């Protein structure tokens, strides 16, 4: 990208061009997010983005907000601490399928269960991109990858179903083709109180595509275009993604449930009697400037 980017104030322009391959969907996902926050006029100083490790994991680093590039799989617990320490922040976890549901799967399901006020945007490119194209927990059965040279024999997670079954209050899936709907969905999540999960289907032509007869980003996009079905009323248990099958997209769930932090505050107010003297309070709290 050697033109002036319309969201340059949202991006760390001194880090561009990004490292992603031509045709990669990650730029689009990043763009949608920029669009979403630009339009909402979200106070950028109160936005924090956390990623794990992976191609997708580089998203945090391009955004000109407080951003954290943690270890592989650990974006959610890191975000948990950040969120609880400062509940005023709007905390977004933006990372890859391998990162969030491969090695990081346990954190995902527990964070959803706790209904932490986190917004998790999971870029599903069906593959471990950064490490060179190994199969992962979202690779469709049959697909070829560096570690499934004879075709993947594992089933893939149905991520919206998984997130919902653990207690997420907002669940959606879009492909990077659905850029405006994706943007809107991100905005809804950012406005939502509680654990929100958006699966973003994105092409990795370099690795997933190349192994599976879709050599360019454009080819993969065309594939998405012809296979996408918008059906927000779909039965969540029936929307797994298969090789060559439909990709059902939509906002599947949007419900209300008190968050962890709301309940924590309630407990503190109702049950805890503060018994400590003021002095103690004062001195012990971390001080701002010294």
């Amino acid at each position, binding site marked *: 990208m050697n033109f002036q980017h319309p969201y340059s104030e949202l991006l760390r322009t001194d880090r561009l061009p990004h*490292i992603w*391959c*031509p045709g990669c969907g990650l730029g689009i996902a990043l763009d949608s997010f920029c669009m979403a926050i630009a339009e909402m006029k979200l106070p950028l100083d109160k936005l924090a983005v956390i990623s794990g490790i992976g*191609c997708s994991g580089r998203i945090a680093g391009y955004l000109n907000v407080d951003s954290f590039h943690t270890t592989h799989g650990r974006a959610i617990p890191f975000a948990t601490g950040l969120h609880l320490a400062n509940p005023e922040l709007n905390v977004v976890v933006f990372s890859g399928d391998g990162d969030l549901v491969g090695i990081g799967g346990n954190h995902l399901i527990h964070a959803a269960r706790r209904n932490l006020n986190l917004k998790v945007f999971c870029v599903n490119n069906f593959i471990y*991109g*950064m490490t060179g194209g190994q199969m992962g927990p979202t690779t469709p059965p049959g697909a070829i990858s560096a570690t499934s040279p004879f075709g993947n024999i594992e089933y893939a997670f149905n991520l919206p179903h998984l997130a919902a079954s653990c207690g997420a209050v907002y669940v959606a899936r879009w492909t990077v083709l659905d850029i405006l709907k994706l943007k809107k969905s991100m905005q809804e999540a950012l406005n939502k109180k509680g654990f929100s999960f958006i699966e973003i289907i994105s092409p990795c032509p*370099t690795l997933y595509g190349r192994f599976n007869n879709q050599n360019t980003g454009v080819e993969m996009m065309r594939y998405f275009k012809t296979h996408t079905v918008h059906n927000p009323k779909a039965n969540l248990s029936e929307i797994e993604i298969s090789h060559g099958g439909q990709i059902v997209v939509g906002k599947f769930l949007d419900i209300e449930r008190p968050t962890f932090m709301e309940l924590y505050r309630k407990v503190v107010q109702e049950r805890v009697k503060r018994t400590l003297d003021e002095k103690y309070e004062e001195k012990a709290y971390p001080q701002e400037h010294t």
Partner: protein
Amino acid sequence: MKTEIRIAGLGGQGVILAGYILGKTATIYQNKHATLTQSYGPESRGSACSACVIISDEEIFYPHLTNTDVGIFMSQDGYHKFNREAKDSALLFLDSDLVKPEEKDAGKLLFIPATQIAEKLGKKIVANMVILGFLARHSGIVTLEALREAVGSIVSKKHLELNLKALYQGYNYQVEKVR
């Protein structure tokens, strides 16, 4: 004798494969020692990418290039980034359409429109074979016969003919300009 070779270009030009073939040719078909090291990882995808080959009659201890004897450059970027450590007397093989050498560059420069030749053969991707053939002719590091065997051991039957054709065309290419 020890020869240090740097091959550089863009991801997708078959730079690493060229290095691999050189190394295999030397070790398996010419009974020499060789090491191949290369740039890895996503930061190199799409951008400048390089392979280092050392070929020697004796055991090679240190696999990093300290004094490049031969450079093969298939992109301007690769040339810029990796030509620094070439020694003054280095022999440089350049894709004439893709690389414009700097004035200051000493040593011997050999040009071949490898990519163009490959395109004419029907597949841009065999430019690396063209340049290997060219190298065999003008450097004496590897023989054409050994190269051919190495290529035969690696390239699938389906594509072998094309690859060999590219190799030969590189070998037989008449040098245009030497500087």
